[in-house]
């Protein structure tokens, strides 16, 4: 407990676009860190750096050595030629002994309501089911850091709220660092120990909110969450000027 993952003066340009400019912040280990902000504010780039898929042009990333990362991408990114179970087997085969691996696959397929589809191919699944399989995959893969990039984007509200509870449960059974990127204020308020609000072009931190309230007490009717919701909504509303200057 108490370790930090730190971005120090990080610069990143992708193509012609300067994404991050002397950007610094830190993530507390074994807590849930939410990033909320408009499209194009560099949220995905931050996750890709945490996963080692992108390197900073300048600046430092600290606290990642020896950490194992699991990732839910915006898209499901499933192998179309492997079955539902085969897609999980693909990432677990080198990690776990066969018996343990099969048990884990069963366990997560059941949790996500996919156990009736273990021999189906992704082609036969709905968009929501594909995304749930991608979530299964990330949960099942052994990790210290779990990265989620707008994981519930394509899902309906009951499904989203259910999956938020599953993330909380996963964290409660074994605390780990979770970095959760979303557009959705409610998801951030239900999950985050810390919520970072970003503005786009140039990417800057508008606000960092610490929320110590235990997850079990977080209901949207709660007064604190209600007032935070309004505050975040106001902050993000001001950002609309960047889309519609004449408003």
């Amino acid at each position, binding site marked *: 407990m108490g370790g930090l993952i730190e971005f120090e003066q990080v610069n990143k340009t992708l193509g012609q676009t300067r994404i991050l400019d002397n950007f610094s912040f830190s993530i507390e280990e074994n807590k849930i860190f939410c990033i909320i902000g408009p499209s194009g504010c560099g949220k995905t780039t931050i996750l890709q750096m945490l*996963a*080692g*898929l992108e390197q900073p042009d300048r600046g430092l990333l600290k606290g990642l050595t020896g950490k194992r*990362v*699991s*990732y839910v*991408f915006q*898209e499901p*990114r499933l*192998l*179309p*030629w*492997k079955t539902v179970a085969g897609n999980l087997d*693909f*990432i677990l085969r*080198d990690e776990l002994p066969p018996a343990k691996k099969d048990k884990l696959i069963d366990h997560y397929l059941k949790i996500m309501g996919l156990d009736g589809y273990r021999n189906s*191919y*992704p*082609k036969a699944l709905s968009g929501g089911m594909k995304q749930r399989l991608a979530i299964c*995959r990330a949960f099942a*893969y052994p990790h210290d850091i779990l990265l989620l990039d707008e994981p519930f984007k394509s899902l309906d509200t009951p499904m989203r709220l259910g999956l938020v509870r599953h993330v909380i449960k996963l964290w409660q059974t074994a605390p780990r660092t979770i970095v959760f990127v979303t557009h959705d204020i409610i998801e951030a308020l239900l999950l985050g120990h810390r919520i970072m609000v970003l503005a786009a072009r140039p990417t800057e931190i508008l606000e960092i909110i610490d929320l110590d309230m235990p997850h079990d007490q977080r209901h949207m009717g709660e007064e604190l969450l209600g007032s935070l919701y309004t505050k975040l909504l106001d902050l993000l509303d001001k950002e609309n000027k960047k889309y519609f200057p004449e408003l």
Partner: protein
Amino acid sequence: MKNSSWLIKTLVQFTGLVLFFALWQVLSGFYNHVIIPSPMEVVRSIIGQASSGELCEHGRQSIVRGLTGFGFALSIGTPLGLLIGLNPVAASLFRPVVVVFQVTPLISWLLLAMIWIGFSRVPVFIVFVTTLPLIVINVFQGVHSIDRQLLQMASVFKINKDRIIREIYLPQVAPYLMAGIANALGTTWKAVAMSEFLSVQTGIGASMAVARINLETADLFAWTITLIVLGMLTDRLLAYLTRRKLSHWM
């Protein structure tokens, strides 16, 4: 519903064939049988070739030559296509060679092969050089069609290089390879007949040369039909295999 539409489709196709043969029959009435033999004469020719053992013997020769050349092209072209797709240095090294192979006229290959390796092996060589680029280019395109996002996923989950090739690249390339094989086999039977015609004494192409000299036009038609059937059979077989092996995820 589905059954009846299938029936209608078959009926229409059958009608097309009947019309074709009727037209052929009518045309053959206007011309000497050396110019256009009638369908019945051609059928008699096929039966004659089959019962004398010619069909079997020459057909076998051509099939063996074709499949040998194609087999070499497949077993060299597949790894070569993968290499060119995966390795930029190999791409710079081999791609121009493949393009040269592809655009070199068939007649040059034929004449050079006669000088280099002797007449008897010309058909195998010709099939090899004409089908090799088809295989290489298809495999190469398959590798290039790879989904970068899947590779990124595999790298996050620390999948090793060997498994990435076997479990991501190869399945991705498979439908492209199948298309390349279908294309190459279609070319194989044409190339084998053409080169037999010009270089050897046996095989379908050589038999066609004999038929031409003897003005046995019905025989010429019969051999042509054999080649068409050969092409259609391999095409159907490949379509069936592709459906069996790949359709569950494609």
